[in-house]
């Protein structure tokens, strides 16, 4: 098995810096410049983080699915490190999405939780991918860990549309998806800025996290002598 080469360039930090910058400007515009929504008032401003989290969370999980497929076909462990990174970031975004959704739902719908298709699908998705992260912790053999988590990622990802449609038939209070087509043009700039801000943060985090995964993998796989030699080189 070939160990992944570990990149050491500064690219992820550039992504993180751009992400923080965009998110700061977007949040400033969203909180102080954009007008309050007519019916919901200031509560609606949570949309500027809620909707970008939803878009990017789905993107991270989709990227994990791509990594899983590429890994199963190529056996290249770089894709395993990316898989681990993107699932972790996707789980974080899905958790934030559920938390922000509850904060927004309480004052507007009067409840913390509703069995709406998107909400329920996000919650199921969160638990499904938490399960995969737990699986990764319990498999000691790196080859098996990589294959099994790829298989589990593919199985869980295919389930997402089925869960969505089954819950939609089962019960349907959520407002239509907020896109730039369905919300007033005055709300666009902060929504777009935050969406790209979180996108850049997400890319940066995935890059940093997959490097950490690559270092861990190298420590697990490399013979003790090789690690010792490298440590000697560094010293």
């Amino acid at each position, binding site marked *: 098995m070939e160990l992944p080469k570990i990149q050491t360039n500064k690219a992820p930090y550039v992504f993180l810096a751009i992400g923080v910058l965009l998110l700061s400007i977007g949040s400033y515009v969203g909180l102080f410049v954009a007008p309050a929504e007519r019916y919901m008032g200031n509560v609606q401003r949570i949309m500027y983080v809620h909707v970008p989290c939803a878009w990017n969370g789905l993107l991270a999980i989709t990227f994990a699915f791509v990594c899983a497929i590429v890994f*199963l076909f190529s056996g290249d462990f770089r894709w395993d490190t990316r898989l681990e990174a993107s699932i972790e970031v996707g789980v974080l975004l899905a958790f934030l999405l559920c938390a922000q959704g509850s904060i927004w739902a309480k004052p507007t719908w009067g409840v913390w939780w509703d069995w709406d298709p998107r909400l329920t699908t996000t919650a*199921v*998705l969160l*638990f*499904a991918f*938490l*399960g*995969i992260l*737990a*699986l990764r912790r*319990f*498999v000691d053999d790196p080859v*098996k860990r990589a*294959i*099994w988590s*790829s*298989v*589990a990622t*593919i*199985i*869980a990802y*295919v*389930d997402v549309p*089925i*869960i969505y*449609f*089954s*819950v939609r*038939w*089962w019960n349907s209070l959520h407002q239509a998806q907020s896109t730039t087509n369905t919300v007033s043009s005055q709300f666009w700039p902060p929504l777009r800025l935050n969406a790209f801000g979180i996108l850049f943060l997400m890319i940066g985090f995935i890059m940093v996290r997959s490097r950490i995964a690559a270092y861990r993998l190298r420590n697990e796989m490399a013979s003790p002598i090789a690690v010792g030699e490298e440590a000697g080189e560094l010293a």
Partner: protein
Amino acid sequence: MLAAALRKELLLQWRTRGQMMAVLVFGATALLLFSFAIGPDASALRTFSAGFLWLGLLLSSTLTLAESFHSEMENRALEGLLLLPSDPRALYYGKAIANWLQLTLLGIALVPVMVVLYDAGTTQLLKLLGIIILGAAGLSAPGTLYAGMTAQLKAKQMLLPLLLFPLIVPALLASVKATSLVILGDPMDQLNAWITLLAAFDLIYWSMCGLLYGRVIEE
């Protein structure tokens, strides 16, 4: 090859039939306990009976699915099987069909318990049987794959439900809905939609898990 694999699984199940009885008692106990969550309200119990039946079967399935790989792990029997010049898919489908059959029998055996405890009788027994067969298929296809993975780990009792439960949400939802339409009546004629959803779930997971299983058990 598939016939041989299936025969082996069924023989193994027949020789450990005592376990099947134990799981049935476990499922019946679960149904008894669920009724304490609602209290002695006959109409509420009847309303929720389908959900309780499927939760009982789901909890029981984690026991039978994990057990189906127990004998393969003893004396490294799985490695011996992999040395045979056979397709791992035959091994998977043999096991999955055996688990499907076992869960179907378990579901059928739990129905009288549900009828007695929750007063949830129905005369449409064929429809109910069809739903149990399709629902059991939805549990056994991904369940067999994940049981094959987790059986090789130390934390198997914990990981199998953790991986399986979120995944089978659509199958569980469709089975519960369809069963409760059969028991409580179907004024809006929704039964077919739920059965179609269940059948689609089965089709997707029976084909996909069979394809992926070879990668899961390879050495």
